[in-house]
């Protein structure tokens, strides 16, 4: 592609505004910046938490204070100054509403801009939506239908009040406060998130979904999600995120814990589109997340993710295959453009017998970005007949970006079967000209090629997400021809 086209496309990328770059003008309840024990206690108090929860947070805070920020990832960034962030922000609204008619129309307009027409979702796709606006969950719908089956789906703040036994038993059991720096921070200051419990033998009849949004500048978002699938149950959960344009980096340190008891299955899908920073690498969200699931006997957990946003993405949704015959799956497409950086992958820890894990990771790099896959397949000594299949493919667009792979395989049992495949490819000018000559313009050609590349992963997403994901892929790669 000659000079002409490159300049033209560069111009298009510059002027293409981040679609979700707007700011909801709602009065916000915001803490002054800084983090200390008083702030932690204040957060707990604001949420009317019981004493045991406040103690739990304080314990985490004290642990966090002793920890050092990790620096081993293949990413470079200006470290967030933890004392310059406000740790609580909520829109001044009555958080608990029985029906959408009671929601502030401004808020509803925001949801519409995000493409979430709640009414439509309610009626057509039968999805129960728990929308998190900044730090408070708004409009939890479909509670009644779920309640009839004994399914609990509510904000975690509510679960702390109404289901303390479950929270006490499971929160921090998969991702302990001591796990890592950001998990400790999250444990101390987590704002809100989703709590879900599926009773024994119940198949959740609808896909559960949550949308997140970082609204105010200077607030970190620390959501905490806990999903428990009791024996023999099934649930499919969708997580989709967007954020408005901001100049200063915004920290997003979430923790997600999944527990699949005997024979249960959890399908967890994420489409992440946080503000990625501008074309010069300024601004953007720091997405430092800890996600982990535990499988008991005959249980299964699949993580499917499409990551196109954030300035820095640092996450490894993982599975602990504790029970015999348990299965862990990880399907991922991570896109980086301009100056984005990603260090993402998964950890499959095989503990039980006859466990199986599948990893399919597709990385797409464009612009000046760097995309790293980091994965761990660990077979412990007692894990007999473990099987793993891993496939990491990288697609490079242009010659200024980078794709890196750090696959770790630790096998301590002779009966294990591990397979690993990796490919690296490039979208070249010749491929684009070939498409052009067949009447397909460059934008469409890139979309075609990228979708072909990511097909295997996109096919794993629930229908409604797959369409959004495809569109996201196209948008995030506009103007990135090599």
């Amino acid at each position: 592609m000659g000079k002409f086209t490159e300049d033209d496309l560069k111009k298009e990328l510059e002027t293409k505004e981040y679609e979700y770059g707007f700011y909801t003008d709602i009065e916000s309840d915001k803490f002054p910046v800084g983090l200390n024990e008083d702030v932690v206690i204040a957060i707990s108090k604001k949420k009317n938490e019981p004493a045991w929860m406040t103690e739990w947070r304080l314990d985490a805070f004290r642990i966090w204070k002793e920890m050092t920020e990790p620096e081993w990832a293949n990413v470079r960034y200006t470290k967030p100054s933890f004392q310059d962030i406000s740790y609580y922000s909520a829109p001044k609204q009555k958080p608990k509403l029985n029906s959408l008619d009671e929601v502030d129309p401004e808020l509803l307009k925001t949801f519409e801009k995000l493409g979430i027409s709640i009414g439509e979702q309610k009626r057509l796709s039968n999805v129960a939506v728990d929308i998190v606006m900044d730090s408070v969950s708004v409009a939890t719908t479909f509670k009644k239908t779920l309640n009839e089956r004994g399914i609990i789906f509510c904000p975690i703040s509510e679960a702390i009040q109404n289901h303390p036994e479950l929270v006490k038993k499971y929160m921090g059991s998969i991702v302990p406060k001591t796990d890592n720096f950001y998990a400790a921070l999250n444990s101390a200051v987590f704002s809100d998130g989703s709590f879900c419990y599926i009773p024994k033998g119940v198949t959740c009849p609808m896909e559960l979904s949550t949308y997140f949004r970082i609204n105010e500048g200077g607030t970190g978002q620390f959501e905490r999600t806990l999903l428990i699938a009791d024996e023999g149950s099934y649930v499919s959960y969708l997580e989709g995120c967007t954020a408005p344009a901001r100049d200063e980096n915004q920290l997003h340190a979430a923790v997600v814990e999944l527990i699949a008891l005997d024979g249960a299955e959890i399908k967890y899908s994420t489409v992440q589109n946080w503000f990625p920073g501008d074309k010069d690498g300024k601004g953007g969200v720091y997405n430092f997340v800890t996600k982990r699931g535990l499988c008991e006997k005959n249980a299964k957990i699949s993580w499917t993710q499409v990551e196109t946003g954030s300035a820095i993405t640092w996450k490894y949704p993982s599975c602990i295959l504790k029970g015999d015959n348990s299965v862990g799956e990880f399907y991922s497409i991570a896109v980086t453009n301009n100056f984005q950086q990603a260090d993402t992958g998964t950890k499959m820890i095989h503990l039980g017998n006859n466990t199986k894990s599948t990893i399919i990771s597709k990385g797409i790099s464009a612009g000046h970005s760097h995309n790293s896959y980091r994965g761990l397949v660990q077979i412990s000594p007692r894990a007999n007949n473990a099987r793993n299949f891993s496939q990491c493919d990288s697609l490079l667009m242009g010659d200024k970006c980078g794709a890196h792979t750090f696959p770790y395989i630790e096998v301590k049992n002779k009966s294990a079967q591990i397979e690993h495949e990796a490919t690296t490819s490039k979208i070249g000018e010749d491929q684009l000209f070939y498409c052009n000559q067949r009447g397909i313009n460059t934008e469409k050609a890139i979309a075609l090629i990228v979708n072909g590349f990511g097909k295997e992963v996109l096919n794993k997403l629930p229908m409604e997400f797959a369409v959004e994901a495809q569109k996201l892929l196209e948008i995030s790669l506009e103007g990135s021809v090599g």
Partner: protein
Amino acid sequence: MLKINNLHANINGKEILKGINLEIKAGEVHAIMGPNGSGKSTLASVIAGKEDFEVTEGSVELNGEDLSEFAPEVRAHKGVFLSFQYPIEIPGVTVTNFIKTAINETRKAKGMGELPAKELLQMIREKADLLEIDRKFLSRSLNEGFSGGEKKRNEIFQMAMLEPQLAILDETDSGLDIDALKVVANGVNKLKSEKNAVLLITHYQRLLDYIVPDFVHVLYNGKIVKSGGKELAYELEEKGYDWLK
């Protein structure tokens, strides 16, 4: 249909085409022959609109319309088809998906809706049979792992699906054994009509036994130095290119 006037083109400052004049009318088959480096592929690329090449003088007109302002995909919509000498691989994109996208993008440009799946499938079956292409082929990634012959047959398959006005076949015969050559030639001959035209670029006379040209031109050092009927090809076969210099 195609009128090339005094075409000069260069790449990276080096002039390759030094004043090409050529006219192709609907229903005609023209062949361009010439030694390596004479500018044959460049001519094909310039007509198709590859931006690496800069047109410094002259023009290319299709049906009276100057093509110079149009991007390659727009020229394709207007009916220009180039069968590549080295068709490139596109992993992850199946042959079927690719041709479906190409057809629908062209239809979109003409204000038509997408081709209904049933019709598309029927068309695919028809053309695949014409070119003796196995159905399993169609679900493979475009050109990935294809042999040279398979790539060329796939090019003509696409030509059959897109039904262009002007088909430029760049060394379509290279890498083909006799049987494959016959299949490809048969395909091209079936697609020929009074409404379209074919421009064959080749080194060897052999292809012209199967796709018989109305006119043969010799391209040498960026210029057409001689034109004639199909006998000219035999003359070149016998004498080589030296006698033209």
